[in-house]
């Protein structure tokens, strides 16, 4: 429930369908070239990647130049954007641009960690459930369904409310632990369809161990699918973190895009018409997450020739 994606939306539908099995026979290099060839010619993938890359570079490269704390009172109060303060200043004279680039940092970090943890849990649960089957599958399925139905955000609100040491790491961990179920489900389904393929049978007959089969035979054959799942989890984690920060449950000392919106609303930026305070953080999140989703559509077209426009 993490990602605000619609199932069957950007998630590759029957992704692994035709490709991987045969691809092994064809030989990896040729397929790799082909993937790159189509990737470089996919406008959705390229446009999304460019937006994400620009924001990522801004997040990584700009803060060192600014120096000082993004929360420091450095300028006149409540100034609209100017040559000196590109995104204007807050009620207290903080530089909105400095907050924005620092906020981008935590946004990417939460996406990476939260999405990464969710992907890890989802993969482990999905692989094991799909490959082992039987009782293990039943139990894991039950757990998945329970976590799936629980509204993740609301659980996180409760947990964060009691938690006094709220850092970005803890936040990511919690987000990761609540937003994996749909990924686990999808990966389980893919694993099930791969587990009956000849090359997996062959590996099993030759006495390979389960984890070796999963990581050497099954996972590589759905790597594109896993990557796309991770992208969706990444976007979902960002949105959840923004929501928590907006309620005021984010890292108390930090800077984040959600927290910026929280402060803007708390200090009447709307009534005062200080649009430069609340437009950039939301726009930043929308741009990152939206670009990730659109990238995913592009990736889907690259990996599944069936979807390519002709």
């Amino acid at each position, binding site marked *: 429930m993490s990602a605000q994606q619609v*199932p*069957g939306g950007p998630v590759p539908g029957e992704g692994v369908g035709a490709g991987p099995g045969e691809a092994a026979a064809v030989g990896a290099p040729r397929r790799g070239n082909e993937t790159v060839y189509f990737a470089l010619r996919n406008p959705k993938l390229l446009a999304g990647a460019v937006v994400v890359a620009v924001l990522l570079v801004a997040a990584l490269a700009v803060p060192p130049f600014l120096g000082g704390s993004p929360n420091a009172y450095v300028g006149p109060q409540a100034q609209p954007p100017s040559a000196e303060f590109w995104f204007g200043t807050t009620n207290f004279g903080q530089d909105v641009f400095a907050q924005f680039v620092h906020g981008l940092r935590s946004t990417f970090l939460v996406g990476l960690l939260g999405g990464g943890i969710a992907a890890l849990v989802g993969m482990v649960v999905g692989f094991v459930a799909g490959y082992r089957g039987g009782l293990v599958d039943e139990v894991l399925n039950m757990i998945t369904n329970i976590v799936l139905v*629980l509204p993740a*955000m609301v*659980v996180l609100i409760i947990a964060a409310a009691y938690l*006094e040491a709220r850092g970005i790491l803890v936040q990511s961990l919690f987000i990761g632990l609540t937003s994996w179920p749909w990924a686990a489900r999808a990966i389980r389904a893919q694993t099930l369809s791969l587990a009956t393929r000849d090359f997996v049978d062959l590996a099993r007959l030759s006495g390979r161990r389960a984890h070796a089969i999963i990581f050497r035979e099954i996972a590589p054959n759905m790597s594109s699918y896993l990557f796309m799942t991770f992208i969706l989890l990444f976007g979902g984690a960002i*949105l959840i973190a923004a929501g928590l920060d907006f309620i005021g449950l984010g890292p108390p000392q930090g800077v984040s895009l959600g927290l910026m919106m929280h402060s803007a609303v708390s200090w009447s930026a*709307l009534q005062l018409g200080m649009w430069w305070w609340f*437009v950039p*953080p939301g726009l930043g999140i929308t741009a990152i997450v939206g670009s990730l989703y659109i990238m995913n559509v592009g990736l889907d077209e690259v990996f599944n020739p069936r979807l390519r426009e002709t």
Partner: protein
Amino acid sequence: MWRYFGRKLFVYALTFFVAVTINWMIPRFMPGDPVRSMLARASVGNAEALEAMRAYYSSLFGLDLPVWQQYLNFWGSLLRGDLGTSVWLFPTPVSEVILGAVPYTLGLLVPAILLSWIAGNKFGAFAARGRWLDNTVLPVGYLLTATPYMWLGILLAWSLGIVAGIFPTAGAYGFALQPSLSWAFVSSLVLHWFLPFLSLFLVAFGGWAIGMRNMIIYELEADYSSYLEALGAPRRLVRRYAFRNALLPQLTGLALQLGTIVAGALLTEIVFSYPGLGNLILEALNNRDFFLLQGAFLFIVLGVLIANFVIDVVYVLVDPRVRVQMQGGAA
């Protein structure tokens, strides 16, 4: 049939059990003393009253009892409908506070969910395979689903509310009004409702439109569509079949998205100071009113579970395949 629903209900019951357990565990096993941190923020000046509250809450948490007994007591009072007493609105019972807010949340959520689902599906199906529309709808839809709920709320409140001055941006009705069935009150209610509804609707709409667009393309490529086309069936008929079949996964999608949309509603309410559960949660957090917070949590979980079950029932009604399989199982 009973097997199918029995299984579903079992999972939901188990989920509720887990939710209650989480609810019970979190204050007890998180670092820090919940009673003290709770009262530290409670705006009670009178020292005597403070002491009384302290004693009351300590006994409520029952921290001196063995853990298993605390747990059983927790369930006991829950099943009696006793969610404790609010700190923020002391001494109103939590259940009463929540019941006062639930109608507002439902009033936002139910129309937003249903209308966005219907409109999004229609629009997505309409856009699919129309080259021009498809190329606009797709990016716009993805941007809408990627928009944080509260940000769209902020933008709408600022642009249509504060700058344009068309809609009020706080509360559920005018400050000067008392709830009644008068025209003045109802129109004020609708005006206040519109923006939060709209922002919820728009974000969800984007998701459904994309979902349908992707699903229907898949269905239009399905074998039954190719067969109809080969036999010269008009596009209208092929699309009608594809749309109907694509709605089924979208219904499953609705169940999966409930939690996200509910969370979106909470955030939106906070932006608009709309007096539903979201605002209640914010007040509970600001006042460290943990009983209220936990009560709201249980209510939301319960609501999501019920909605899930309703979707399960609807699904069986609209998908003949499930129905046939269930009959096959019974026979």
